[in-house]
């Protein structure tokens, strides 16, 4: 019995050795390579470097999650994280904070841009009711979106520590809801506003001269300006370019039900953050010039009418044309029902 077992064992060993020899031979010779290929075909695949490369590439995979578009390892997420946390976030803080600091210093050194002459008391219609409603609605939405957006980017470093978890939870949830619902409304109204003011913001030759003189912000120079000066035109075209990127990228993020992929949303998020931080930074300048920085500018957007002196000083070309058209400036005391009044827009 013992010898029989030994015999069988030896036979198996010889068989195994023979098999190995055949295998080795067939591996070495391409002509007979079919057999081991078949054998490998029945085996579980080898997990090698190629497998792990494939894992990252996102090719040739299926996933047991029915609607999943995520391959095993998605390295783009880490790139997005680095760009957002290490670059966009600090850069935004520097840009917005830096602009605030510049404005404070500018105000302290240069101060308000006052009217050079006494007001004449004669008022000129500059902004109609429709335009003012548009401006203030868009402005309110812009400020709401900026504050909630800043909270989404920086809030966690400040408010959770100050107010505690419960308040923070409500605050950040409110921020998201306001941001998501106000965003599309802002987008629509921004486009309406851009369309409304497109004509007066077309670049003219004298705008170049305006830039060369720095818009007359420092000193007593008053470069030529039509209805909109070159600075206002820059703000307009920034909103018409960068502003639209903010709107479009925001919409991609806001409604994640149209099949946009995770990579699409990473890109949309980076574009949205960068462009909106640019807008916020420039908007601070716009707000400064429109309120603290220039005497008589805010009353134009508040009441719709500006003083003759202000018009002559800041928008001389527009003033000349209004005067030429009307014979003489409109009388003081603006009419009460100004809904139908049309502002004169030659330039």
């Amino acid at each position, binding site marked *: 019995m013992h010898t029989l077992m030994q015999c069988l064992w030896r036979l198996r060993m010889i068989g195994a050795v023979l098999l190995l020899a055949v295998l080795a031979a067939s591996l070495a010779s391409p002509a007979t390579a079919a057999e081991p290929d078949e054998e490998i075909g029945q085996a579980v695949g080898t997990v090698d470097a190629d497998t792990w490369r*494939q894992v990252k590439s996102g090719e040739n*995979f299926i996933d047991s*999650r029915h609607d999943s578009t*995520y391959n095993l390892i998605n390295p783009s997420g880490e790139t997005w994280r680095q760009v957002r946390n290490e670059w966009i976030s600090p850069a935004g803080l520097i840009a917005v904070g830096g602009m605030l600091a510049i404005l404070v210093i500018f105000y302290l050194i240069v101060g308000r841009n006052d009217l050079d002459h006494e007001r004449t008391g004669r008022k000129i219609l500059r902004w109609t009711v429709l335009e003012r409603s548009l401006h203030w609605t868009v402005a309110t939405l812009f400020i709401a979106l900026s504050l909630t957006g800043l909270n989404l980017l920086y809030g966690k470093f400040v408010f959770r520590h100050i107010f505690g978890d419960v308040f*923070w939870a409500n605050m950040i949830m409110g921020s998201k809801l306001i941001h998501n619902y106000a965003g599309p409304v802002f987008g629509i109204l921004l486009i309406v506003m851009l369309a409304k003011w497109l004509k007066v913001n077309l670049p003219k030759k004298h705008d170049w001269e305006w830039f060369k003189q720095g818009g007359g912000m420092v000193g007593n120079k008053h470069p030529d300006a039509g209805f909109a000066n070159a600075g206002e035109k820059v703000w307009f075209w920034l909103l018409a370019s960068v502003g639209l990127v903010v709107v479009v990228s925001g919409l991609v993020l806001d409604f994640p039900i149209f099949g946009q992929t995770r990579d699409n949303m990473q890109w949309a998020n980076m574009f949205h953050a960068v462009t909106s931080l640019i807008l916020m930074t420039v908007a601070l300048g716009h707000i400064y010039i429109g309120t603290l920085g220039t005497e008589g500018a805010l009353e134009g957007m508040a009441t719709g009418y500006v003083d003759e002196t202000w018009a002559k000083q800041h928008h001389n070309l527009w003033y000349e044309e209004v005067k030429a058209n009307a014979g003489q400036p409109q009388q003081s005391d603006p009419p009460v029902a100004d809904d139908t009044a049309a502002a004169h827009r030659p330039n």
Partner: protein
Amino acid sequence: MAQMKFLCDAERCIECNGCVTACKNANETDWGIQRRRVVTLDDGMPSEVSISVACMHCDDAPCMAVCPTDCFYKTDDGIVLHDKDICIGCGYCLYACPFGAPQFPKEEAFGERGKMDKCTFCAGGPAETKEEEYEKYGANRIAEGKLPLCAEMCSTKALLAGDAQTISDIFRQRVVYRGHEDGGWSSVEKAQNAGPDVSANLDEMAYDATRATREG
């Protein structure tokens, strides 16, 4: 202190989706939420290989780093958990996660995301009562001294869960028994130079268990 990790032995995973089912059952997740998934590469081809994946409870978790609400935290066991009371469903964790772990029940208007849901390593989450915890986060098996159900129920023991040191020891042992060239982590160069690797085939895998006693 233990450092909890999942490890999936790709040469043992047979794509039975038992882990997916076990997880769904243990945590009774919302409709459409599947915390664990099985990814198969080269399906139906000789090089087919499957691996089960969920939240990997990263040491340097990208979700934690980008969350605008700071709702994530790490337990002493290295498990990444999140507070659903603070989560706002913005989706940033999903953008950042390499494994597609965070999921959102699509339940609000205009496709607004609900509170994020992901694998908790069966460790529950922050809540006042046990019932609330189960409702929000699913099972807290860790509190009962048990490991995640997905790994406990894995039929081929491909999916391992536990302290990083322990499970990597188990995996290393397997690799040694398989005789896998270079420990299964062949460098690119070696893999390119080597012929087709027949050492890691189905038969070898089946021998894993028996070899341990035969040789050891």
